[in-house]
């Protein structure tokens, strides 16, 4: 079946470096993607989203890149800080019929080393 998945389960970076978290998706019908951050013991927190008719979108210290040719999504975090340590999920949003479903990947643990 269709799925959204991540290449790297754990990513360790030095404080101040840039982080890149990758995600592969397989549902070619998806037209909307979201990155969520989940800290230990908390619910997922929205970071940034992108539509399939875009290839790049920037937020505050974060950039999402979408490559539809290879069905690849990435999240770039500039000047990574200790507070960025968390699990990051990519997700696709699908509207089918009367449904409204968000499908998550398995997540990447980002560890920021001082």
């Amino acid at each position, binding site marked *: 079946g269709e799925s959204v998945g991540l290449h790297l389960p754990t990513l360790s970076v030095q404080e101040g470096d840039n982080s890149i978290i990758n995600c592969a998706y397989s549902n070619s019908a998806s*037209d*909307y993607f*979201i990155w*969520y951050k989940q800290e230990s*013991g*908390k*619910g*997922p*927190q*929205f970071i940034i*989203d992108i*539509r399939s008719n875009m290839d790049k979108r920037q937020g505050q210290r974060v950039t999402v890149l979408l490559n539809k040719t290879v069905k690849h999504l990435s999240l770039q975090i500039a000047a990574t800080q200790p507070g960025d340590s968390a699990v990051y*999920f990519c*997700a696709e*949003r699908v*509207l089918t019929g*009367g*449904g*409204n*479903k*968000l*499908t*998550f*990947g*398995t*997540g990447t643990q980002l560890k920021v080393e001082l």
Partner: protein
Amino acid sequence: GAGVSQSPRYKVAKRGQDVALRCDPISGHVSLFWYQQALGQGPEFLTYFQNEAQLDKSGLPSDRFFAERPEGSVSTLKIQRTQQEDSAVYLCASSLHRGISNTIYFGEGSWLTVV
């Protein structure tokens, strides 16, 4: 309220016991979702409401799981005759409208442990 509120935050149930998990969505949000998150995994879709109508319950794992939103605001997820495999975090989320670009906001979750 300022965010999605869930209660209880933590619940320990004996196998076979029924549990009820409550969700208060952000005020005015039409869409409400329930997700199940096992340890170390991403959230898995359970069900979706638009106002009081349950439009998608394709993710409910068995007929022991039941969700309702009778007045289009507060929602309850009920699990009957709990089993150990039901142990997970149950996340509630809401969005203002059904539109695809409407941000989905999550609560902190209800942590269920079945012993």
